[in-house]
């Protein structure tokens, strides 16, 4: 699926979800999203980094500097307490919406 078709808020949720297990750097997040969405989404850097910085400022993510697998200084993001709460509430909302959408579309 092309990235432009991502619904508003979807990218945020995907980022939150991708960080649920462990802290990751930007590239890792991008690959993880691609992996958990079975390759449906290809998140480009031009969308990913603005989103990461926005979410960091909003207090959902925190970051620290660490070393990547190529031994280069990289910025690792992790979920904050607020971010974790956000992931929970957004997941629930998204499930409700997708259920509702699915049933609406099935309706005769």
């Amino acid at each position, binding site marked *: 699926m092309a990235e432009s078709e991502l619904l508003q808020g979807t990218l945020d949720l995907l980022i939150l979800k991708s960080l649920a297990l462990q802290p990751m750097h930007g590239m890792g997040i991008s690959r993880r999203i691609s992996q958990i969405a079975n390759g449906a989404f290809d998140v480009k850097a*031009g969308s990913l980094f603005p989103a990461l910085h*926005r979410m960091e400022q*909003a207090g959902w993510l925190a970051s620290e500097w660490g070393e990547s697998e190529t031994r*280069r200084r990289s*910025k690792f993001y992790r979920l904050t307490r607020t971010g974790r*709460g956000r992931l929970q509430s957004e997941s629930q909302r998204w499930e409700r919406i997708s259920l509702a959408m699915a049933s609406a579309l099935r309706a005769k």
Partner: protein
Amino acid sequence: MLAVFFRNLLRKKQTEQELDDELRAYLELTTAENVRCGMCPEHALQKARRDLGGIEQVKESVRDIRVGVWLEILVQDIRYALRSLRRNSGFTTVAILTLALGIGANTTIFSMVNGVLLKPLPYPNPDRLVTLWETHPAWGPFLTVAPANFYDWRQQSTSFSRMAALDPYPDFILTGRGEPRRLAGAAVTADFFPLLGVNMALGRSFRATEDHVVVLSYSIWESYFGARTAIVGTGVRLNDEEYTVVGVTPRDFSLVGKTSDFQARTRFDVWINLGLASPPEAWTRGTHPLSVFGRLKPGISLQQAQAELDGIARNLRRLYRDDNDAKGIAAIPMSEHAVSGVRTALLTLLAAVVMVLLIACANIANLLLTRAAARQKEMALRAALGASRKRLAQQLLTESAVLVLLGSGFGLALTLLSGPALIAHLPADLPRIAEISVDGRVLAFTTLITLATGIVFGLVPMLQSRVVQSRGVRLNARGISSGQSRLRGALIVGQVSLALVLLAGAGLMIKSLSALLQVSPGFQTTHILTARFSLPPRYANGYRFGTAQHRRISAFQRELAGRVRAIPGVRSAGFTSYLPLAGTNNNWSFFIEGRPPNPPGVYDSTDYRPVTAGYFETIGIPIKRGRSFEARDDEDHALVVVVNEAMARQFWPNENPVGKRLKFGDEHWRTIIGIVGDVHHQGLAIAPAPEMYIPWGQVPNVEVRPTIVVRSFIEPASLTSALRKAVAEVDPEVPMDQVATMGQLVSGSVSEARFRTAVISLFALLALFVASIGVYGVMSCLVSQRTREFGIRMAVGATRGAVFALILRQGAKLAAIGIAIGLVAAALFGRLIASLLYGVKPLDAATLAAVSILLAAVALFASYVPARRAANADPMDSLRYE
């Protein structure tokens, strides 16, 4: 929010670097992945670049997002702050008003300090300008200068690019344009205007050798010469002589200096050439009318110039022992000399107003704490819903920032609106009044105190957010933590101690002012009208020393006095040349008959006053011995003198001076016929000096500026028009000005002390009021926080009295600590203002005790009301509370 803003500002560079690192790491990782997928490194990098879509574009959009989010949060926080401030309109109004008053008062006082003390003088390269004075170990450090000495200084020194002199005495009578008018003139050397760097608005300054040329002040040019540009080159008649106008000073030109250096002149209307292009006559080393200005050469320090002047002074002492014995030369920066008399007073006011702001800040901090306690549940709830501690603190900080900004905005408006009224009330002899304005520096100061205030407030929300954290999500959080109540206690103690310092300062100044006003000046201050005349040159028959040529002046005085005495309501009238407390003075040397001659360079000299018969009786100076002047003491009769008690004490300590003789430089013996009481001539705070009085008809020089003194049965000011009419009848060409009642002169002589006393008293009252509100606020808050505890106490048997005493004790304890600290601070403050006090010691026990008691009483009353409320509460209600 603000914290984020500042972090962004300060760490902008770091943020950029981090973003760069982050993206480069991404690029590298993607490239490495591509290589793993089998691409050659070059292609791998290219593909990674393509995928990334341009590092700069990504960076740009990240930056946009960061700013956008920042703005969004800011707007959100401001909106939230405004909403919450509006909800608590009472709190908001009190806080903003307090801040506006505090910041406005600070801005106003600082604009005065800035205009008078801090601004550079309004001339080019002002730090190179100095004033030069003669010094004498006995007569003082800043004496005006003899023309011949000035000439030698200018000739011999090399440290100055220019040196100029000003003689403030010349007066001119401008006639032929309606009512005659006296123009205050200054005679200056040709170097004067170039030295100050004044570029004439019209024409030019005069040249050293030009005579009978005049430079007009801008205001006189505007008001008397119709602002005609064609004025330059035309003639004007001044004192019956023809002068050519060569220039007009710029509109904003004024001579910065002490009015006391210029014979009470605050401005000059016309400027003529003092000459001194060639060596002056030798006798001018014995007369000292000049103020001297110098401009230091580039690269020459004041110390170097002073060292050179010391050498010149040594040389002059050796050459002219008669006139220059023991005399030195002092150079002092022009900016310093002009304001040396008011520096302490202005800085004291600044200190006082900063204290007021601190007290106000403490109050608002207290209010914020009270609110914080009330909002603890709200905060705890929001924290539970996931708001981070930082976000909460940011929000509260934004709230404080909004408060402070609104307060300082209103404060600044207050300053701008009240500015003109304030300037109208300033003592007229305050130097540099014209330069008081709200300029960049004042705005910077306001910004600075606003920021400082904001930080003080900012701390409160920080502490508050710590409280929130420590309490976690205990929704039933109740009461204030002990840390917080300690903080509030400290705030109260601080307020009380600052208020005490201000009250003590005000108390001392009030006591000093009233001591000053109780000084008996030595003459009558009520029912006396005074006015000064300027007699045209024909009255003087040309100035020559030692010749009695006053018949026309005496005739004028006799005729005018006669007409004035005939005015209904007038009791008596007399003339003097130098009125007490009017800022003018003259000093003469003399020789006492039968005494061994003084060594060269040592003189007996006293202040000297030409007066007419009837002067002592009119102004109410008592005759202590001998007789007063009578009409017969004139040009044709024996020469006589009256001395005051101070002079009698100093020169005839164990004798009766009546009948003794003395002489001036004119070599005529004069007999002392009486002794009169001392008067405070130079100021109420200044001890009377030895004085001698001479009948006007017998003075050896010519005095053409008589001041009439009229004693009345009725309100003296009401006689002004009748007096003016009488003068016009005697000689319509004699201008009359400087009309004042003796009461006004006395009051004007203490106007600086009165002004600062009034301002500091106002500040002290404000401080007392604000601090008492602070105590009241904290005690009531304490009572409401502990309502439950009191309920329990009473339920288990505590009496109402015990609860009442408990609270009162708490208030009393805080007040006592505050007063104790305040007393120490007040002692230090008292030492700082010691030079401003008259007749009261800086550690005046009565004042300190009185203000302590006042403050204690107010603090106790402020605790009494909440204590009553607690004691009268129904214990059952208290227990049900919450």
